[in-house]
């Protein structure tokens, strides 16, 4: 049978099936929808440990010194100049390059947590409780010191805008397990005051990859996906009939021309129609029991909050979405570090920990990789008067901390370390490229072999510089 000559009834049945299955929930729907949009035939290159990713992007550069990288020895250097032997010409942004680099010790108390003894600062009490599920990387480093280039590199492998982001690569290589939703979804926190850091579309763009792989932003708005809502005065039944008419006419064009683009167009209208059902069903949290909201914290009842987005992330994972990326802005604490950083920790600590716990109890953590981190860290020197409550820290690319959980990483483990000033990596450096190589590896992808030819060159996420899978992180 000519696959393009679908009988009208078949179309309707297919749509009906998927909607019905969605109502049932998750695993059955996934099975029914499997192989809808296959990835590349050569993939996976090896058995995958993780099938899906949740990337909890903390935009602005969280301070590793307050949160994870405990340096008790700093107190005795408080207020003294950072030795040049440590600084070694590190460039600073123009915000502090004219200022003396006076050491500001960490503002938090630390505790060794769980059996693993991970060091976690006091502003993250909930994370402390799940320390044994987490794998910390203390030795992350990057090349960029300003937000936009650093975040662009952090997500696309290159500081120049326009390359595909890691989620787009995953979608391109691995395809989808759900035919009612895009492969790559992006959730931005809605802040309660105007946010400091812009977030750009290219952070989740598909670059030169086909645009079907770009991240689709789920907004906390009447339209969670742009233009999702029918115009006023159009009951859904009418919409279905109109689409049937449209599909019938398009099928006529297909028969006349044989152009496969027409067949794709017909399928995309069907997908759009299904998204009109699947997305509102997805974003409507009213079927979540109270105990879930309690787990994720009070903010989870506020639509668009980081906590609500964490619940959404779990729902997306349950529906087989390949790559979910959250963005929480305003970690850029140049001043009033204690008040601002604690506020960001309050936004994110409980929901992040709850997400890991929730995935674990539902049996989803084993093959879901959770990644937490920002584009760079913060420097040991105080910005402003180091001992004033007004003081903050400038950007710092040479070391920062991230954590991962589930999806084949070593739980209860800390990888790499920094020097006594949390300034330089001391052991086991992990470049952003290595992180990318490792995430792809966990997804069953060899980062050197997932390439795309563009303007005559074979591009890959990890670029041309050497990049390695960090074996020490694998469980």
């Amino acid at each position, binding site marked *: 049978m000519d696959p393009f000559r679908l009988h009208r009834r078949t179309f309707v049945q297919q749509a009906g099936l998927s909607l019905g299955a969605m109502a049932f929930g998750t695993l059955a729907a996934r099975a029914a929808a499997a192989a809808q949009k296959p990835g590349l035939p050569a993939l996976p290159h090896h058995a995958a440990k993780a099938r899906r990713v949740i990337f909890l992007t903390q935009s602005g550069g969280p301070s590793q010194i307050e949160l994870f990288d405990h340096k008790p020895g700093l107190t005795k250097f408080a207020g003294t100049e950072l030795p040049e032997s440590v600084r070694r010409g590190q460039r600073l942004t123009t*915000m502090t390059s004219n200022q003396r680099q006076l050491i500001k010790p960490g503002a938090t108390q630390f505790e060794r947590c769980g059996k693993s003894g991970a060091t976690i600062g006091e502003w993250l009490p909930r994370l402390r409780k799940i320390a044994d599920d987490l794998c910390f990387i203390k030795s992350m480093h990057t090349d960029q010191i300003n937000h936009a280039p650093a975040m662009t590199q952090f997500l696309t492998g290159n500081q120049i805008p*326009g390359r595909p982001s890691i989620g787009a690569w995953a979608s391109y290589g691995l395809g989808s397990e759900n035919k009612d939703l895009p492969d790559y979804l992006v959730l931005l926190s809605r802040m309660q005051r105007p946010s400091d850091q812009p977030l750009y579309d290219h952070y989740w763009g598909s670059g030169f990859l086909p645009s079907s792989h770009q991240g689709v932003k789920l907004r906390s708005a009447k339209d969670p996906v742009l233009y999702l809502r029918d115009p006023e005065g159009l009951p859904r039944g009418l919409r279905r009939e109109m689409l049937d*008419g449209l599909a019938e006419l398009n099928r006529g064009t297909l028969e006349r021309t044989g152009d496969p*683009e027409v067949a794709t167009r017909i399928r995309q209208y069907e997908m759009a129609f299904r998204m009109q059902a699947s997305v509102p069903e997805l974003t409507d949290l009213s079927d979540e029991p109270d105990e879930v909201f309690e787990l994720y914290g009070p903010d989870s009842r506020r639509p668009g909050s980081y906590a609500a987005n964490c619940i959404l992330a779990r729902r997306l994972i349950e529906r087989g979405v390949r790559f979910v990326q959250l963005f929480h802005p305003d970690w850029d604490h140049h001043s009033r570090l204690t008040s601002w950083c604690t506020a960001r920790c309050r936004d994110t600590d409980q929901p992040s920990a709850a997400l890991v716990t929730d995935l674990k109890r539902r049996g989803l953590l084993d093959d879901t990789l959770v990644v937490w981190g920002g584009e760079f860290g913060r420097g040991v020197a105080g910005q402003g008067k180091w001992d004033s409550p007004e003081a903050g820290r400038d950007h710092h690319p040479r070391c920062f901390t991230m954590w991962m959980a589930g999806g084949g990483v070593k739980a209860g483990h800390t990888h790499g370390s920094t020097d006594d000033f949390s300034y330089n990596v001391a052991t086991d450096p992990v470049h952003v490229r290595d992180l990318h190589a490792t995430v792809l590896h966990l997804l069953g992808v060899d980062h050197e072999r997932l390439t795309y030819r563009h303007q005559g060159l074979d591009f890959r996420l990890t670029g041309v510089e050497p990049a390695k899978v960090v074996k020490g992180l694998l469980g």
Partner: protein
Amino acid sequence: MPLLSLFLAASTAAPLPDKVDFNRDVRPILSENCFYCHGPDASHRKAKLRLDLRDAALAKEAFVPGKVEESELSLRLDAEDPEERMPPADSHKKLDDRQKAILRKWIAQGAEYRQHWSYEPPVKPDAPAGSEGVDHLVEAGLKQLGLTPGPEADRRTLARRLHLDLLGLPPTPEEVDAFVQDASPDAYARLVERLLASPHYGERMAVTWLDVVRFADTIGYHSDTPRNVWPYRDWVIRSFNDNKPFDRFTLEQVAGDLLPDGGREALIGSGFNRLLLTTEEGGAQAKDYQQRMLTDRVRAVGAAWLGQTTGCAQCHDHKFDPISMRDFYSLGAFFADVHEPDIGKREEGVLVSTPEQDARLAELAAAVTQARKRLESAYPSLTAAIQSWEKDFTAPETPAKKAKAKRKDPDAKLAAQAAPILKKPADKRTAADKAVLRNYYLSLHPEALKAERNAVVTAQKSHDAFRASIPKTLVTTKAAKTRTVRILPRGNWMDESGEIVKAALPHYLPQPKFEGREPNRLDLAQWLVSRENPLTARVTMNRLWMQFFGTALSKNPGDLGAQGELPPNLPLLDWLAVEFMDGSWDLKRMVRIVVNSRAYRRASTATPAQREADPYNRALARQTPFRLDAEFVRDNALAVSGLLVPKVGGPSVKPYQPERYWENLNFPVREYMHDQGEAQHRRGLYVWWQRTFLHPSLLAFDAPSREESCTERTRSNIPQQALVLLNDPTYVEAARAFGAAASAQAGDDDARLRWAWRRALQREPDATELGTLRKVLTDRRAAYRADPESAKKLLQVGLTPAPKESDPVELAAWTHAARVLLNLHETVTRD
């Protein structure tokens, strides 16, 4: 060079050619598999062996010409030892048997090299003049493949294709009828001429060029704030409409400020040099951005004129092409004289005024001068008053700290200046002292000379307000001091150990000698469009071909280098390139030649056999259907519905946009306010181009963000496109206007449906099609009759009011029928 066959070259089963051709057969294999380690990039070269130059390869005894058995290269291909075998396993590259056989046969035939095809000057193959030349070369290629050219498209299709390709707008049914009924032999050629003369031709051509030069309304980095550039966009439209020769078009953009016969028009064109990404981020470092801007410009020139992926050479010598880091930074050095801040806000730009505006502005400036004079002539009348005031006056004491804070306050500044003067004896005061004192007095006595002073303020205000209303645009001006350009090791701007370089053209391309002087931007511009440069004409014709056939002759229009594609029909590309230069870079002439060809006029439908023989239609036995570009999807819907405001040029416009789409933009936070009135229904190319948050309806249809030069748009087919066409208020409004117009036609439902069908597609529906559309209409009518409230709601979308006298049920039902038509695949496709 013989005509080439993509299929023969690509197929592993194809027989070996009698004579192996280096560029066609060998270079692609070496470039793909060997040059990465044995190519131009010295830093990455293994075993000091390079295979891209014959002498260097011979010096290392890579092969012995004529003797396959003695050639190391041949032995390595099948070496048993994995350490010996080439390409090595970790490269993930592998040669098939045919590729190996080609390399061996090439060695046996003497291992001759030829320069990369695009670096050799194009030579015009023997072919008839005009469009016949195109057909001669296309048909020669078809013959070699054993393909026969397909039939000409029907007249309706031709009219629709020409309108969409040349104007980006659909024809009206009446225009199509006139063409269909025109039996004269030159009907087609006359239609072409009419369209080339339309002001919308320039708009259509501009869309492609604006992608290439990365034109946008905002700066791109960080805050992505606005800047003044839209007059450059209008300059581009004007240039295409006036058919400015492409060489002049180039000169004005790269060096309009240096042209002896430049003038304001050329200066506006020089805005090209200012279109790059800039930053206003606090904390950004000047040198960082100096470097970014240099590399941005080199990449843009490389993509727009040279078809070279220069970007690689920012950090290392190019791995496939001969462009070196020195070439890269030397090319950047041409722009080291562009006057601009490294970081921070750009200037407002030059005024783009009409002669009338100039005259009015001069008038207003004269009025200011006159009012000032009148005021000054009244000053002597104050002398006595000032003297008596001075006697009783004691200057207020200002503590030092406050004085510092008040330095910006003009009155405080004046007080500080006046204090020492007041202590001087009157006869010791200079004229300037007296002026300060008078001004101070005036600042304390608002009643003094009130009328005269007000007159100055009023005159100044009207002058300033009028000046503010005149458009401004960023242009290039030459800086007094040229920036120093260094080769930056690994592209690292903090490493200042690299050699300082002067402006120079890429070493591997033919070029003039600049005796006794350093070349400048004008030299660069002149070289770009000189006969010596083998690339610009090819690059431009390659892109032009893509506009009319969907795919370029060499399929990556941004890369005519080693990793680009050797065009399957190189003689055709070269013929076009030389014809273009011979014809004084006359672009309309080349458009005319291409669209009058039989190749362009063929039907786009393909038989299964044709599809099988040439799946990507590279040999052009037929035309290729493709989806309209983003802007034209919009233009088409507005035109069909009758809403389009066809005005050419002007400030960018803001159509409806989903609420809070800009909520993540910052510094400052901005609210998007959509335009009212006619600005709401302007063509897509006038839509405000916000680089980091491009209008979502354009983005869904693959309009590029224009952060980088874009020489080719992707053509995706994604569900978001369905959502835009169905639900974006622009399209809902268009459907309603279209539906209202249809329902107002004479006759019964079928007559009206036919009318609408012809508006959208310029053809009659067949019986099945009409039946399907009729069913949509009658079903909707019945449904809304049962639920008239829904009908009223539907009619409230958008700014255009629904016609008052119409029946809401009727209008809502017709809106749906119109919506179906606007969403058809055929409607958004040019075939």
